[in-house]
């Protein structure tokens, strides 16, 4: 529940960012809760965030998929099978305890791990693109173990 809320919050931030709106601080837990409680369009980004889980988390300097991460990706694969018109981007991210350049490669490694798992579960590779933001797009903006754990992730979004 907590992770889902954070996920929704993170996505709101990302969406605000994509629209070139720099007022992402306005995204509050209230916004996230609203996305969950109100009806969302099936097959949409909001649906993915609220009902499937849009992200998986990694250990420090690792790209192994935990049991929990695999469960999330299983749900994503099933959801993608349900909405075959949807194409996705998987974005890898890192905490800020690595160098800028190394983290770009590490984030891509994480995005690839999630992508490869989805492909193994039957999602066409042509429906998935990957990108890495290294340590430059943190979801949690604090600098503590909890924030870093949130920021070591691969986030799936609808293209």
């Amino acid at each position, binding site marked *: 529940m907590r992770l889902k809320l954070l996920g929704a919050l993170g996505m709101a931030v990302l969406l605000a960012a994509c629209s070139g709106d*720099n007022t992402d601080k306005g995204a509050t837990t209230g916004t996230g809760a609203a996305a969950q409680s109100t009806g969302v369009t099936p097959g949409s980004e909001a649906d993915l965030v609220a009902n499937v889980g849009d992200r998986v988390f990694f250990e420090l*300097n690792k790209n192994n998929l935990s049991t929990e991460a695999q469960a999330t990706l299983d749900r994503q694969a099933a959801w993608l099978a349900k909405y075959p018109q949807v194409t996705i981007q998987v974005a890898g991210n890192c905490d800020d305890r690595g160098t800028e350049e190394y983290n770009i490669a590490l984030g891509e490694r994480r995005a690839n791990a999630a992508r490869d798992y989805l492909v193994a579960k039957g999602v066409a590779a042509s429906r998935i693109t990957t990108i890495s*933001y290294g340590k430059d797009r943190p979801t949690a903006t604090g600098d503590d173990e909890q924030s870093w754990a949130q920021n070591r992730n691969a986030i799936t979004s609808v293209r």
Partner: protein
Amino acid sequence: MRPSDMPLISDADASLLATALGRRGLIGAGIAGGILASPLAALAQGAPGAAEITVDQARSEPIPIVIPALGGDFGQQVSEVVSADLGNCGLFRPIAGSLPVGMPDFATYKSLGARALVSGTASSSGGALRVEFRLWDVLTGTQIQGTAYTAAAADVRKIAHIIADVIYERMLGEKGYFNTRIAYIARSGPRAHQTTRLAIMDQDGANSHYLSGGQWLTLTPRFSPANDQLAFMSYANNRPRVYMLNLATGRQQLLGDFEGISFAPRFAPDGRSVVLSATRGGGSDIFTVDLVTRAKRQLTSSGAIDTSPCYSPDGSQVVFNSDRGGTPQLYIMSAGGGGARRISYGSGTYGSPVWSPRGDVIAFTRIANGSFSLGVMAPDGTGERIMTQGFTVESPSFCPNGRVIAFCRQTAAGAGGAGFSSGISTIDITGFHERAIPVGGASDPAWSPLNG
């Protein structure tokens, strides 16, 4: 024979003389970047030059130098820029004092504890500026240097930096680095989504301006050896790749054709190619791209992350970052690829290696227990020494003479990103005299070669 006794001579003769005179050689005659420099006749005759002071000596005892406001309508400004350059490098101690008229009264300046003295004028006429500058050895009462510069008035800071470089070189026997720029990434906005712009400034933080608009995440500018281009990484159109920017024309172009993300560019010392890395599967490989033919050459294919390549100044070797052994460490290989050997063995992980232009050390970032350090080590991995530490200190970049490093220092963020800051600082490679460059939110400094 004192260089300043000589009449105006040609550039070719000047460089021959400079060689013949050794490291205390002639500086001054010539044209660079629209600035004309010519020697001034000496007011004091036939005495020996300043006794040599080494950089090591100046670190422990900065050279006391009187830098009065020069005469003329630009005199104050020139003095301020020269004083700031010399004071900020940590090797000089500027002293206020009165401007001498004609031959200085050296006893007065000696009583101030000064070792050297600057005099001269900086006057504009129309849009043109003429700066006459003399450097005096207070102890021997002789003129060390006398040069007149003519240029556009808009170049006043540049002339002041050139004068500071001349003083540095005449007093310390090594080239200065004040007439240089630093390319960087300007950062603004919330921690979760910083607006990043390619930007450039003089090394002292003046004349900063943006080179890109901030729509896309932009990182890691790197100067070409000819000082005319930047290689950098941009997420333009959500395709993170390496681009080149021509600083004169503003023309921007994609560099190379890679399936994955291309990043971490650095020019070869001869300027003919760029070395970079490109992601593939779970790792990244190192390539060179020829800037004329655009031909790619793959240097590594370990399957691990190989990135942050940087050439030795002679172009024969490449230091890079790799986790092929399990954790990110520093490796050196031949410039053709192959023969990679690990050089970092301290506790923690290592990254962002950069080879000193002097060739003798490699600067790096080391991360241990959640905290960052900046250090240097010899290319064989011995003599590791930490310069500075902090929550985040990374992206070292050497000034042209290898004596100072610019780097990015970031503070930890509290809840909601509060308290986060990212800025550029400089530090002497001995770990002495760290100071922030006053340019605001910034990261990824790239120190230029000496400007023309």
